[in-house]
């Protein structure tokens, strides 16, 4: 077990280095001169030169990379270019808003997806199952953007059930702003999950133990709720764990559209204003969360099933 732990930790470390390396290459080499990006097309060469010096972009590339790498390990991301605030402070200010939207929304969509996929798998190849399957395909063929625009138009503008746009600093009044984005998020993310969970359930359905249970005379309901759901839970848990880190970065579209001051909106703003330190920090922070969650998943899986250590 300890050997497994060390192996996983080491590989996580190489991935952290890889993430910072790819991020750095993208912004400093593929993207061209960051100072030019920031100064805009019409800046004079002198302005660009002074900016380059001011932002520390005139140091050798290798030095800049190691500064960036040390930032990732010390969690001090420097200052934002556009408003000169500490990036760490910016992240702390925005993460709460993202999570208040994504956590309830994601939980709702997972619970609904499990229930709906169970209902579909229970009635495999019937009218209900096929209908649900096609509904999923239909819903998946409409852009997420369209859901956001239409839902705001109908439920906020026309019916006045929800506020159109905005945010409240107090937790108590915030929920009214959260509700509509939350519903949109969970409904739009529902169909792919239903398809995946249904496939996982149906795969279990063909196994021998199901036939044994049926031969023993157990009711369909017992077989599904106890035997199949338990065995199909591993792929479901794996999927949920792999998507957890995306909750931290929030939903770019929803946050921008409903005025929620979360990390997704921050990402879009910093891309539009070429605020490199913020984009780099967000990319690495998002990946670090992913790596940590993945590590936790591997350890939990190895704890539950020792065979996992062989992978």
């Amino acid at each position: 077990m300890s050997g497994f732990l060390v192996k996983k930790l080491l590989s996580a470390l190489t991935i952290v280095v890889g993430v910072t390396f790819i991020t750095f290459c993208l912004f400093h080499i593929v993207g061209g001169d960051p100072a030019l990006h920031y100064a805009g097309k019409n800046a004079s060469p002198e302005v660009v030169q002074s900016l380059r010096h001011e932002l520390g972009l005139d140091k050798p590339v290798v030095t800049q990379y190691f500064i960036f790498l040390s930032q990732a390990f010390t969690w001090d991301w420097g200052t934002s270019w556009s408003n000169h605030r500490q990036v760490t402070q910016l992240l702390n200010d925005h993460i709460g808003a993202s999570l208040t939207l994504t956590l309830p929304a994601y939980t709702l969509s997972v619970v609904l997806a499990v229930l709906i996929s169970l209902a579909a798998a229970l009635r495999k190849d019937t009218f209900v199952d096929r209908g649900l399957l096609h509904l999923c395909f239909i819903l998946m063929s409409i852009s997420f953007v369209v859901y956001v625009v239409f839902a705001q138009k109908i439920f906020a503008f026309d019916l006045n059930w929800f506020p159109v746009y905005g945010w409240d600093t107090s937790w108590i009044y915030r929920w009214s702003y959260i509700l509509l984005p939350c519903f949109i998020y969970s409904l739009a993310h529902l169909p792919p999950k239903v398809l995946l969970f249904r496939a996982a359930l149906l795969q279990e359905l063909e196994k021998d133990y199901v036939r044994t249970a049926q031969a023993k005379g157990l009711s369909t309901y017992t077989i599904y709720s106890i035997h199949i759901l338990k065995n199909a839970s591993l792929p479901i848990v794996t999927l949920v764990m792999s998507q957890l880190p995306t909750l931290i970065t929030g939903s770019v579209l929803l946050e921008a559209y409903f005025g929620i001051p979360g990390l997704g909106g921050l990402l879009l703003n910093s891309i539009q204003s070429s605020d490199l330190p913020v984009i780099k920090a967000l990319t690495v922070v998002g990946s670090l969360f992913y790596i940590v969650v993945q590590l936790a998943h591997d350890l939990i899986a190895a704890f539950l099933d020792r065979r996992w250590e062989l992978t």
Partner: protein
Amino acid sequence: MKIKIFSFIVGVYFLIALLVQCGWLSDSASPERIVSYLPPSPEYWLGTDFLGRSVLVRALQSTRVAVAVGLISTLIAVTVGTCLGAFAGYLRGWVDAVVVWLFTTLDSIPYILLLGAFAFALGQGLQNIFIALGLTSWTTLCRLVRTEFIKLQEAEFVIAAEAQGLRRWKIIFAHILPNVMHIILIQAGVIFVSSIKIEVILSYLGLGMEPGSASWGLMIDDAKQEITRGFWWNMIAATIFMFGLVYSVQILLEEWRKKRTPSS
């Protein structure tokens, strides 16, 4: 029957895209009579937008961007994913270690952040969308191909080919690859659909096509203000045109999948 109908629809989209690429519909603007926000009428079937352009023509022109993004990004992703997966799975050793490290690293960056980073570094425009989407969506395919190659490495026909002293690249591409093709094709369809959907979102966010070009995402972006004033046709047109293509490809994929595994 189902396959025929939906293949026909996809074919029509491809044909429209090809015709637009060849210059069809390009001279449709009639600057002498510009009327903004005309509702659908016999003359303008889907009305006009804020610049008085026919919404139907815009939606048709946007097909070019969607099909091009779908095809070329998929081509890039499939080429990269298949080659890396094949080399890693067949050669193993340090090649395998590097490829596995590469796709684990890319997968660790949440997709929207990776895409945002690419879109930012490369800038707007069709070619940059191809590159950004192509280089970010190959990892799943690469994983699958690598696993299959590891499995097939021990198959008898591969051992026979090795015993004959065939070259490595010939064993990889002529002997093993055809046996993995069904996985690659299905995955290519998945990448095709997701590329089209992501282009719409990127364009909407201002990270995709340049403003002024024809793209469903840009049409929806225009329409988000109009719709509160009751001008719904821009939005509906973009949604329905995108729906037709994405839905058809998804149904085709599902049918192919059913053929491979009849039980599900």
